[in-house]
């Protein structure tokens, strides 16, 4: 993939600055799965000095969805007249007995969509089906989902439901820092999520924990610059939330997207794989939209279930274990036969390690 020469020069100059700035070890968590993939795809790890450690965080929506919620979706898909629609990455995540992809092969009507609006059009075209949108995602995905819910109500579509496993990033970062299991120097904060929420929701990182955060884009150059900005802050003895991804992120975020989220969705306590129950870290439909809430309409309970035996996804999502440290990694759990979600999702850190031959 051909690139301009000037990018290379910029990269070389950032790498020089980075080597000059580094003193001792630097432990950085890249929160977002898209960052993890980009880091591996571009080979950044093979270029960085040894004393910079990049730790993959919980920013993979599929990975943090607990087993019980996967099971609930599968059970829902097996109900009469139900068409379950969801994003592709969820299909292969093992529940406690089967996965959506196997349930589909066994006859359940499960379809992959890439935009929430597709769920709405399926419901419109097939009025006799009860179309359940199994929705996962962070602040990036929830505004279009909220808009779709509002649109369904406006069009008086009564056969569409949302099964929400949507999550919010800042409460998870707070929970990670509060657990004190991680000795971090700072975060590469997710670019896409921050386009929506801006800088404010991260301010506790600097204020309460005296740590640094840089909202970073997804190109290799962005990531190297993000790390350099963290190093500059440390060198200058500052702890702040800064934006590297200036071409997309504004400090105030996207007020229109925030407004529609606020209008349709409300924060609720939610369970995360690995991180347990985190207060106000999930999103549910507000009272006015309750008829579309599949969790309520279908009355299928969501049980707390254990992760598969041996699977370290929970610790990997907290950044306290690296994928190769999992006893299942490689031989028993790989992208062809995944055990845990981090090996399934295209944004999962185990999949990134495996696919791109990461050992570091």
């Amino acid at each position, binding site marked *: *993939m051909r690139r301009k020469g000037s990018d290379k020069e910029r990269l070389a100059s950032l790498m020089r600055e980075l080597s000059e700035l580094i003193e001792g070890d630097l432990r950085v968590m890249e929160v977002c799965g898209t960052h993890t993939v980009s880091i591996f*795809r571009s080979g*950044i790890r*093979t270029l960085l000095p040894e004393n910079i450690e990049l730790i993959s965080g919980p920013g993979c929506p599929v990975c943090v969805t607990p087993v019980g919620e996967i099971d609930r979706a599968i059970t829902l898909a097996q109900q009469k007249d139900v068409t379950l629609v969801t994003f592709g990455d969820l299909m292969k995540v093992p529940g406690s007995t089967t996965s959506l992809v196997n349930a589909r092969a066994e006859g359940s009507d499960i379809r992959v969509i890439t935009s929430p609006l*597709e769920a709405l059009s399926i419901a419109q075209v097939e009025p006799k089906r009860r179309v359940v949108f199994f929705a996962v995602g962070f602040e990036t995905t929830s505004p279009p989902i909220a808009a779709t819910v509002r649109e369904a109500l406006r069009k008086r579509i009564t056969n569409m439901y949302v099964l929400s496993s949507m999550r919010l990033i800042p409460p998870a970062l707070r929970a990670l820092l509060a657990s004190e299991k991680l000795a971090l120097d700072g975060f590469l904060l997710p670019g896409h999520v921050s386009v929506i929420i801006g800088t404010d929701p991260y301010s506790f990182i600097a204020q309460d924990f005296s740590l640094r955060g840089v909202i970073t884009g997804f190109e290799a150059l962005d990531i190297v610059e993000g790390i350099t900005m963290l190093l500059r802050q440390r060198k200058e003895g500052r702890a702040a939330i800064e934006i590297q991804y200036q071409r997309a992120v504004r400090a105030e975020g996207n007020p229109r997207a925030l407004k529609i989220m606020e209008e349709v969705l409300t924060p609720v306590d939610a369970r995360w794989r690995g991180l347990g129950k985190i207060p106000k870290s999930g999103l549910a439909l507000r009272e006015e939209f309750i008829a579309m809430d599949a969790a309520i309409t279908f009355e299928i309970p969501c049980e707390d279930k254990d992760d598969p035996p041996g699977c370290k996804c929970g610790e990997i999502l907290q950044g306290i274990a690296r994928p190769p440290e999992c006893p299942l990694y490689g031989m028993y759990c790989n992208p062809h*036969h995944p055990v845990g979600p981090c090996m399934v999702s295209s944004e999962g850190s185990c999949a990134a390690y495996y696919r791109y031959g990461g050992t570091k």
Partner: protein
Amino acid sequence: MRKAPTILLAHGAGGYLSHELISTLFLPILGNEILASLDDSALLPISGATIAFTTDSYVVKPLVFPGGDIGRLALCGTVNDLAMVGAITLGIAASFILEEGFSTNELRRILDSLRAAAREAGVEVVAGDTKVVERGAAEGLFITTSGIGLVPGGVNIRGSCAREGDLILINGPMGDHEAGILLARGAFSLKGTIKSDCAPLNHMVSNMLKASKDIHVLRDPTRGGLATVLWEIAQSSQVGVEVEEEAILVRPEVRGVCELLGFDPLYLANEGKLVAVVPEGEAERVLEVMRADPLGKESAVIGRVVEGHPGRVHLRTAIGGHRILEPLSGEQFPRIC
């Protein structure tokens, strides 16, 4: 979940699960020395000559897409599979499974397109069959084509023939076909048009062979894309492969689609591209011929066969880092050909 008791769409994606299905079910039951080579065409020795024989089914959805349709695809796919062992096509057979209710007008258009592609390739459909199934048992139309060809004397092109020091060539940008199908299906609410690269490669291959008979491997990177094909070559020749990301061309619009959907262009299917592995001394002549062909204007050397890491493919990334290329796992996208 160690075993898949039922067939999944991913078993048809051309990646790891397809390989697993073939090696654990098909080869143990049907396998023999010729089938086990898993080349694009079987090579049958017949009284001093070598005959190439191949077959392929087409279930692409939608039936018509920018740059082609199921008819053109079915013809080109089989012509290309024969070309990938250096064979000159002798004849093509085509079987049609038609769904009750399918429009004869649409069928005519697809047949016209198949004929046009056959003329382009200079081949003829010499045998055929039609079956009709009830509504719902097929989606419009499925086509299976088979082809038979003659391998010229002195030509020995197989996946297992890559040797240390060989250079690796491709004839243009990667991913146009699958990205084009993705957009044509409209399922991703993405707008825009990318034309499939679907084309017969037999003329280019025949000119390449005129320039040098010493071509070691030819492969068309269809399902599973370039990454999977390079891995297959590394595996069957038990050699190491090193490629340069910067040398691999990807159109900006294809890269855009990949970025939005989280796909890797190196795993996207192509239908008018080939990977050639040739000795370094022959590379320049072969490359010149490829670039002179309308289907190979953007041909380039993308890497080489190396001594270390047999069976593995290393990619040097655009920023100078490196990573390993594994075969496609699971379904990147179903029913693309």
